[in-house]
């Protein structure tokens, strides 16, 4: 994986000192809260319901055991013993003090980590496929391209006060495991006639106006990759709406201009920037890519002893095919039935760190589903890994099932939320686990947001739940048919909302409809797409 050189380290160290100085000026009264807010946000520091919240970047989701151990230490030293992994490959701490923030950033910098641009109206943490470098189906490892973008986007002088936040995902396979087309810019690295290049999508996003990003260029030669991204951003910075923050994302610009006109403007700017010369030297990509060379995989057994049914179930559910046939990628579920999606205690982080060191070439991933991943586990070691995970409460065999719920922090933590998300996730996962329906229902992606900002990706859920405020009480809207994957689609609302008990019953009802209607091999989403909304509506609202 990528290692900082003295330049990268100096940049992060300089940022820590810059922030320390900004915090000092805030505490001395030289900065008002209005002036300080964008500065703290660009260092990941929010003011939430109960305290400051710090969002730490895990660029393209990759980290090693040393870094995970530091995340555990920070949870204990500065927070309340736990952290929350997010859908964009970040970790959030919920109980941070402003006066500690610079020290935390300094601690992070000692392990090549930071909170740079994890919030604010700037280019955010670059996310990627959690199986990058391990998946059998990728064209190349997308992470070198993501790292090139990380460096380009960090402290970008022109794009620090964009109209609104800007999220980029980079993948390199047909399968989309990063919700790429629901990003402001989605990049797919492709190979054409032996040449590597980048396919660009722009103007996707969730929030209050969900949109699927249209393709804006089928192939950007890789030695013009950053130049093209710069052109996309410049057009957005100049013409994205600034009169209304709810219409300021690039998706609105692309929508209002029309993709064709946005493309025309980008192409014009691209041609200009090619003449200016903003692309990093060619050798830089090669230098970065060398950091992502395969670890020393060794041949070994390709089958395993399935006599323990619990182990066999976990293998079936939570492992993913690896490009080397003696290995798999193993998903560490942060979704125990009844648990808080994405939360991990310091102790659990340490267990995971040790497993990564012992069994996965010292590598870990944070998944967009709020789980963790050991990317390279030898099949011969799988039972030992599972046993250790199970003992730590991390062995839930539920990847991509209805228990594997994405949920935002909701009204339990977030100052923007209108309703709680976590209790719903807890009750639904508990209920399906207890009744044994999880396995019967199979793949079903349930996503819950506590407000219209859609951090819980409800628009992209096979089943989505949106919490709203209805005259001072929590109310939940149900939607069906969304997907964040390569078959991307936006969910449609079923009808009137429900209270907490009502929406849990409604989720059971729609799974009943699915189970009754499905044909062989159909997932919930497939059945929904075949039979449409009506049968579900009938079950929910019919007489």
């Amino acid at each position: 994986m990528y290692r900082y050189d003295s330049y990268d380290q100096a940049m992060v160290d300089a940022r820590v000192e810059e922030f320390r100085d900004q915090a000092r000026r805030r505490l001395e009264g030289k900065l008002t809260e209005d002036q300080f807010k964008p500065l703290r946000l660009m260092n990941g520091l929010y003011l939430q319901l109960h305290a400051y919240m710090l969002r730490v970047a895990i660029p393209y989701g990759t980290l090693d055991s040393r870094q995970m151990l530091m995340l555990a230490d920070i949870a204990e030293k500065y927070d309340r013993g736990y952290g929350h992994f997010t859908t964009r490959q970040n970790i959030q701490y919920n109980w941070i003090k402003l006066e500690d923030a610079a020290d935390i950033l300094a601690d992070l910098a000692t392990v090549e980590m930071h909170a740079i641009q994890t919030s604010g109206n700037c280019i955010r943490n670059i996310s990627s496929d959690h199986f990058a470098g391990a998946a059998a189906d990728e064209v190349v490892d997308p992470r070198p391209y993501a790292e090139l973008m990380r460096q380009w986007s960090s402290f970008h002088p022109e794009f620090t006060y964009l109209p609104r936040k800007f999220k980029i995902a980079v993948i390199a396979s047909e399968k989309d495991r990063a919700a790429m087309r629901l990003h402001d810019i989605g990049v797919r690295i492709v190979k054409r006639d032996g040449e590597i290049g980048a396919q660009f999508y722009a103007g996707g996003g969730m929030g209050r106006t969900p949109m699927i990003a249209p393709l804006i260029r089928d192939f950007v030669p890789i030695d013009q990759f950053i130049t093209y991204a710069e052109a996309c951003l410049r057009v957005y910075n100049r013409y994205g709406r600034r009169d209304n923050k709810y219409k300021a994302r690039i998706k609105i610009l692309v929508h209002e201009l029309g993709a064709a006109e946005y493309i025309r403007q980008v192409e014009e700017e691209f041609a200009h920037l090619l003449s200016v010369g903003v692309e990093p030297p060619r050798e830089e990509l090669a230098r970065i890519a060398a950091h992502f060379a395969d670890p020393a995989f060794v041949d070994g057994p390709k089958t395993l002893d399935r006599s323990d049914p619990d182990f066999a179930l976990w293998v079936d559910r939570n492992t993913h095919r690896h490009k080397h046939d003696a290995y798999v990628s193993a998903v560490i579920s942060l979704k125990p039935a009844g648990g808080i999606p994405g939360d991990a205690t310091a102790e659990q982080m340490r267990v995971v760190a040790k497993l990564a060191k012992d069994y996965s070439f010292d590598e870990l991933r944070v998944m967009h589903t709020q789980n963790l991943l050991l990317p390279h586990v030898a099949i011969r070691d799988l039972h030992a890994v599972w046993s250790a995970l199970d003992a730590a409460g991390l062995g839930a065999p539920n990847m991509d099932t209805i228990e594997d719920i994405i949920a935002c922090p909701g009204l339990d933590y977030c100052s923007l939320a209108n309703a709680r998300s976590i209790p719903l996730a807890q009750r639904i996962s508990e209920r399906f686990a207890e009744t044994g329906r999880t396995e019967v229902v199979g793949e079903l992606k349930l996503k819950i947001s506590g407000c219209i900002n859609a951090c819980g990706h409800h628009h992209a859920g096979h089943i989505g739940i949106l919490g709203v405020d209805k005259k001072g009480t929590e109310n939940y809207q149900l939607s069906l048919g969304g997907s964040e994957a390569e078959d991307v689609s936006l969910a449609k609302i079923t009808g009137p909302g429900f209270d907490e008990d009502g929406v849990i019953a409604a989720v059971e009802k729609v799974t009943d409809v699915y189970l009754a209607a499905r044909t062989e091999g159909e997932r919930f989403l497939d059945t929904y797409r075949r039979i449409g909304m009506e049968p579900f509506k009938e079950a929910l609202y019919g007489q």
Partner: protein
Amino acid sequence: MKILTGNDLRSGAVTWWNGSGWSLFVDDAVDVGEEAEEILAREEAARRVNVPYAIEASIDAAGHVRPAHIKDRVRALGPTVRRDLAVPTADKTGWDWVI
């Protein structure tokens, strides 16, 4: 009644105006009546509180202060899903009325 709340600038902790300073306990909150704007401006300028605001609240039969809106009730007590991390309070019935 009208009470004032905000977050402590340094720690971020939720605080409530008790008439002379900022308390961690909602039960200490006092009715500020018409003085809300004046106190908010003064206290924020002095950096004794961050982004403070006025809210509606009532006092129950047992004398506990109950913010009107669910968001401020969650702020008063802590995350409903981590009651082990709740703000220590004399109001043992707090979780009964938060939602």
